[in-house]
């Protein structure tokens, strides 16, 4: 056992060292400087809780960014996961198309965010975009909806660049379904259960842990989302599609206000931790499914 302890320590050391260097130091700096006024080239000056007070009391852009982020987290952790789950259950029927459909569904997930942004920017272009061109084919020859810049459609347009593409959720759930013992399905069939009943009352309850994990993965991905917003709307029109990562970027890189930007960063980390704890509690992640 003593020998094992040595090996365990040895193998953990590189990971711990990397974590300390890359994350721990950054997080300490992030927290420390969130209480300062700090811009590039100057030394941080301690200002107490001023950044946090300004954030909640005065900053309407922060509030808009937070609400948008919260809505996207909610949509991604519910609708997105539901789409992935339904698709996984359909694929699990192993009909003739299942391998083809699984591969096609995966495509959007292997393209970089910037490329997806460009793709949608072209598809939704008011002049030459595919979507408007199709509408023009069916009647209104003057149709020129500016999907990303019109207040009525901007939020939905950005949302549709990520919400339906749930292949990662599908793959994780498919792997979990494969781990359910065949004997359970056989027993259910012998008892006369239909496929729908098997899915509703056996499969889905047994997927609670992995669905919870998918909810965490999908929800927290919205706390990092910036590439597609940057490529398509830049957070506009106005602040209609602004989220907190985009706001952090703008505050730091455009306003050159790193202290304030880090305060928003601290809030975002806190929001993420609360979200993860809440999902873990709701799904009782870690406890047995049986």
């Amino acid at each position: 056992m003593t020998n094992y302890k040595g090996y365990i320590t040895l193998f953990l050391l590189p990971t711990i060292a990397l974590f300390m260097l890359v994350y721990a130091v950054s997080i300490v700096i992030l927290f420390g400087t969130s209480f300062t006024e700090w811009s590039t080239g100057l030394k941080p000056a301690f200002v107490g809780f001023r950044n946090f007070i300004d954030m909640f009391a005065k900053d309407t852009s922060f509030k808009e960014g937070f609400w948008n982020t919260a809505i996207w987290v909610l949509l991604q952790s519910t609708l997105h996961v539901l789409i992935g789950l339904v698709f996984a259950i359909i694929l699990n029927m192993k009909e003739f198309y299942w391998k083809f459909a699984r591969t096609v569904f995966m495509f959007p997930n292997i393209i970089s965010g910037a490329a997806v942004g460009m793709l949608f920017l072209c598809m939704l272009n008011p002049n030459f975009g595919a979507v408007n061109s199709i509408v023009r084919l069916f009647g209104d020859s003057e149709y020129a909806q500016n999907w990303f810049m019109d207040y009525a459609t901007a939020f939905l347009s950005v949302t549709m660049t990520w919400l339906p593409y749930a292949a990662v959720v599908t793959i994780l759930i498919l792997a979990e379904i494969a781990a359910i013992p065949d004997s359970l399905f056989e027993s259910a069939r012998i008892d006369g259960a239909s496929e729908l009943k098997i899915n509703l009352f056996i499969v889905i309850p047994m997927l609670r842990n992995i669905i919870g994990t998918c909810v965490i993965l999908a929800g927290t991905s919205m706390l990092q989302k910036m590439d597609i917003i940057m490529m398509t709307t830049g957070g506009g029109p106005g602040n209609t599609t602004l989220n907190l990562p985009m706001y952090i970027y703008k505050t730091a890189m455009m306003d050159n206000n790193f202290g304030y930007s880090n305060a928003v960063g601290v809030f975002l980390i806190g929001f993420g931790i609360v979200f993860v704890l809440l999902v873990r509690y709701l799904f009782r992640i870690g406890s047995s499914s049986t």
Partner: protein
Amino acid sequence: MVMGKNGINDILIKGNLATPFNDYLSQDPEWAKEIGDEALAANTRDGKVWSISDQKQTVGYFYNKEMFDKAGIKPAQTWDEFMSNNEKLKAAGFVPLALMTGENAWTTNLILASIVGTSGDAGNKFMNTLHPSDFNTPEMIGALNQVKTMLEKYTTKDALGAGYANAANNFCQAKAAIIANGPWMIGDFSDTTKCAAGFDQKVGIAAFPGNGMISSYEVGYMNGGKTQETRDAAEKFIRFKTGLEGQRIALEFGNVVPVSDQVQPSEALKQKYPLLVESIEVGNQSQVHYGSLDSIVYPNVTDAWKLLYPELVFGKSTAEEIAKKLTDIAAKNK
């Protein structure tokens, strides 16, 4: 060596990370002469020359001569005439302006800057002020209202949110009659991968109404060397890049207007790009000069246009409210 654009110069100066060029210039008066007093003064603060410019921005607008002829118009002398020309172009079946509000709203803001810059002494002073803090002026509000009309009635359907490439493409593909831009675009007009063959023959250049032209010196290069050795090496390279030979190369290969009158286009260049010579002449004849918005405002203001123009056009904010927002954004800069 650092390109000091987009607020980088402020960060380096504030953080004591750059070395001024005063000593180098006094040791080499010939180099100082090649850059010229005006260009040096443009990048001098409190007597210190923080960067050396290697090019002048002289920006008017390009227009499609065929479309102008068909609409029966000539380059406008006043902004009222400019708007009337837009109406005539539209009536003749053409989209008048290649505008864009994405990225830094470059082609749109050149027009906005010119309306303000040619509006009288106050507007011209505003457009020649580094880091203006108050946008709540009658000149800016009036100009925003005019640009709003242009975005609503006289531009392509993709202008809101479009990038520079979209606007340039709309002009080069003869989908719009006018684009505001600098002489560096001239090479594109004879590039058949960007424009139809022979398009360069159809393009004319004009100063903005009020005989105005954006005429400013680029921020250019800063010396950020940490040791004497690297500072000297950076200075050596910057001296080459901004000296007569460097300016000549930039003019011949990049259609960049040099900072020195000593650098003139070669005969071959004149033959290849007659529009470039015309652009220099139009620049010399223009009487009202001012900077581009990008060259005078804080970087966070430059970044805000893409969010504010849709607000203006969709009626979410008035021009007065946009001016106030710009003022607030400028005040946020650290």
